[in-house]
């Protein structure tokens, strides 16, 4: 049970990975420093949320949106984040669009599949009729030879 919002921590493994990738090879981080950075990241999210919420309220909206967060970054003097965040947002929007189209395509394929299954069934019935006709012709030939 989280007593304070700052206690809602982000996963240690991920934080550690991000830190290690940001630092040169061979550099380590003490457990205390790592846990302090993790805590700082939580505080950062809380602070950014609060700032972003102010922008949303100014716009008379109840839902935080992406531009509120970007405005918050500016307010918090993290302007250097704004360009990479905009790029990430573009990529995220493309990915979401791709996922939506993929699931719509899947649905279309499913519908098409049930249609083609019905076509196959009717084709099999035609083949059966042809076989019966061939048998009748063979019987006729035998009768002629006798005569």
């Amino acid at each position: 049970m989280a007593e304070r919002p700052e206690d809602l921590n982000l996963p240690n493994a991920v934080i550690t990975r991000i830190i290690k990738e940001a630092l040169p090879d061979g550099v380590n981080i003490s457990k205390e420093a790592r846990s302090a950075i993790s805590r700082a990241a939580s505080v950062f999210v809380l602070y950014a949320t609060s700032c972003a919420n102010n922008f949303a309220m100014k716009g008379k909206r109840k839902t935080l949106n992406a531009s509120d967060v970007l405005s918050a970054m500016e307010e918090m003097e993290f302007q250097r984040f704004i360009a990479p965040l905009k790029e990430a947002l573009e990529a995220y929007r493309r990915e979401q669009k791709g996922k939506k189209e993929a699931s719509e395509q899947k649905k279309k394929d499913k519908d098409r599949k049930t249609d083609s299954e019905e076509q196959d069934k009717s084709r099999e019935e035609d083949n059966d009729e042809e076989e019966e006709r061939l048998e009748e012709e063979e019987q006729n030939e035998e009768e002629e030879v006798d005569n």
Partner: protein
Amino acid sequence: MAAAAAAGSGTPREEEGPAGEAAAPQPQAPTSAPGARLSRLPLARVKALVKADPDVTLAGQEAIFILARAAELFVETIAKDAYCCAQQGKRKTLQRRDLDNAIEAVDEFAFLEGTLD
């Protein structure tokens, strides 16, 4: 015995060695895009933090995503700034005090003062 059975199958046998942090749950499945995956921090946890704010009613999916990405950038930034301090002390391990120094030295980190204890 197991080796013989594996050899019998036509498919190449995959080594099940330790794959780094295999035990840690993968927060995000890797995307097929060639670039880095979009965000490493689990959006559910970020959402939990956002909801902890009593003044927030709702947050859109995009907002949560950007917050997650911003948090990652923040971690990278503060780690690098703290490292500058450690480097001056010719140490190869980042200590808590390096972080405290960075917070004091960098204006943007002022909001952190008093929150990490």
